[in-house]
């Protein structure tokens, strides 16, 4: 057992990090808020790097990597606040034509979601609808959206007008269940990245900002806030990586259990750390210009995806019920 990153995984993480630093620096990310969150050329560059095709076979143009690797890549994407329906498009690579190559942008929604909010209504090509019979795809052009002012400026939303169409079935109930677990694992990766970035931002600020003649990071009350940010992130990190490994190697444990732990701890870490990052910034944290709010808002946007914290806590209780 060696639950640390392999040399290849370290290289993968470095590669994704460099790509994001080059193509998605914070200034670019912030600009995307005025462009519907996604620029097609950047999206295709992500596809070329393999973000969506990572796990596909070489014959299908993929890198034949595993879920553990995908989770690592998504952690960096989350850390870089890269906007877009990354998880749904990745899940649909190999199922919806064009998704893997970055030509078709895919977003998803539960059929019974009372909000009826679809993410990235301005750019999405295919909307996938999930219900307990499976997954159904529909052309986004067939839908009408009432665009609403989004919480996360980088996660634009539109409310579907009228009933959702039935759609064309692309996965049965069992496949849909699997994909939901996989989607939750990838989202956990994004959330872990947000948690880490919030901690990094807070610590950097606290080392720099001076009050009462010294860096505010020297005061215990702030130190303790940030120590907890770090601890929360480390707790989530183990769980998130374990979920990836378990998806690749189901012999080591229950996938549902691993995903429950990953989604719940990473959502807690991202949300709490997002809030705490703003707190550490004091008044400046309340300004649009400081990046802190973007992490918190993204955490809120991702938390309900593929099961809320409560959903996964309930799932875990259900698992305990069968074991005890």
């Amino acid at each position, binding site marked *: 057992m060696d639950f640390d990153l392999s040399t290849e995984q370290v290289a993968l993480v470095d590669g994704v990090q460099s790509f994001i630093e080059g193509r998605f620096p914070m200034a670019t990310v912030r600009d995307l808020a005025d462009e519907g969150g996604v620029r097609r050329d950047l999206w295709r560059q992500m596809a070329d790097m393999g973000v969506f095709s990572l796990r596909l076979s070489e014959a299908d143009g993929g890198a034949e990597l595993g879920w553990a690797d995908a989770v690592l890549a998504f952690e960096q994407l989350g850390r870089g606040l890269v906007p877009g329906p990354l998880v749904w498009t990745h899940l649909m690579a190999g199922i919806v034509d064009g998704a893997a190559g970055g030509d078709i942008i895919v977003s998803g929604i539960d059929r019974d979601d009372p909000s009826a909010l679809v993410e990235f209504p301005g750019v999405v090509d295919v909307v996938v609808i999930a219900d307990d019979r499976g997954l159904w795809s529909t052309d986004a052009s067939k839908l009408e959206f009432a665009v609403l002012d989004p919480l996360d400026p980088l996660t634009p939303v539109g409310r579907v007008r009228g009933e959702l169409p039935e759609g064309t079935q692309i996965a049965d109930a069992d496949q849909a269940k699997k994909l939901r677990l996989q989607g939750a694992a990838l989202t956990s990766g994004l959330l872990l990245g947000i948690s880490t970035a919030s901690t990094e931002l807070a610590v950097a600020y606290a080392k720099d900002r001076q009050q009462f003649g010294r860096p505010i990071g020297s005061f215990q009350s702030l130190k*303790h806030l940030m120590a907890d940010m770090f601890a929360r992130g480390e707790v989530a990190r183990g769980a998130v990586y374990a979920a990836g490994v378990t998806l690749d190697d189901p012999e080591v444990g229950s996938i549902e259990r691993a995903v429950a732990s990953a989604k719940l701890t990473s959502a807690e870490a991202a949300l709490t750390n997002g809030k705490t990052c703003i707190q550490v910034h004091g008044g400046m944290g309340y300004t649009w210009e400081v990046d802190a709010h973007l992490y918190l808002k993204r955490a809120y946007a991702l938390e309900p995806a593929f099961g809320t914290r409560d959903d996964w806590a309930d799932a875990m209780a259900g698992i*305990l019920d069968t074991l005890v």
Partner: protein
Amino acid sequence: MDLRYSESDETFRAALRQWLAEELPTLSAKPSAHDWAGRRSYDTDWQRRLFEAGYAGISWPTEYGGRGATLVEQLIYLEETTRAGAPYVGVNFVGTLHAGPTIMTEATAEQKAEHLPRILRGDEVWCQGFSEPNAGSDMGSLSCRGVRDGDEYVISGQKTWTSHAQVADWCELLIRTDTDAPKHKGITWIMFPMDTPGIEIREINTIAGTSEFSEVFFDEARVPVAHRVGLENDGWRVAMVTFGFERGTGFVSDLVETDRMISDLVRLARLVTRRSATAWEDVALRREIGHIQAEMDALWAMTKRNLAQAARNGVPGPAGSVMKVVYSELYQRVTDVAMKVLERGGLALENVGEWPSGSFVAERVRSTSFSIAAGTSQIQRNIIAERILGLPRE
């Protein structure tokens, strides 16, 4: 990243399980909590059996008589012994996990030969004389005095929170040997025989009604300089050496026990019925228990990550501080939830009717110390903030 156990890991596990299945039924009954002579007997008997079976000093190098187990084997050892309900390390704690490793690293060949085999066999019990009434979190300010007089130190002062002092043979003792030097530079680490004249042991009564800790008063107790480990006034560094040994396995037993406790809590919740529903049918309680288990699973994953990194780097990160802070406070939440399940059943420290409730209530009290002992949560947070995040000292 890989979570599978190797074939040799599984062979180790199987052999250990087999031995435990054969050995544990032959143990005598557990002594009562205040029967210290009985507890010493019980715990050292277990140490002896481990020694005879080749499991003593699981993390000790083989050159000192230990098993020299890999980190994964140590993880397996702790998992299996805890799951099987084997005796806890008990009075062997300081010897096998603290004083022993310090002696291994810092002592002379003679001191090692004198003490290490005896510790491993359960023939020698150690206690720790570090904390003082005025030196808790600020252990460096300790003032228990050791005055050099020829080839002896004359020791006067007071130690507190000394575990198992009542039955210990030796004490790993920190004394102040230079009152003029800066505080961390005037401390000496010495092996103190507990049958030395001039000491008095007073049990501390804890809020849990237990007596495992004592105050120890020294009144001109004399100890040979030959019992000193390391150089005079170099004792602080010697004491810190032990913290360098933590490789991520420190909380494995606790994690196993807590997982078991959560399962027991589910069983308890199914038994407690009020307003014609069981506590387990209460969505809020169920959800909270599920949430806690999700966090426990995360701590297992974190343990395995820490182990892998320690194995690779050889140097323990301050990752131990993260585990300590998170685990201690999570465990307190488990016992809090148990109290919620019990409602007025929590007024008794013993089982109420058919409910196996007593141990949960007792643990609610006992768990209070987890965020205080071995470095308070506040100190741990300082360590994380300063040593991991690099935030400046106050």
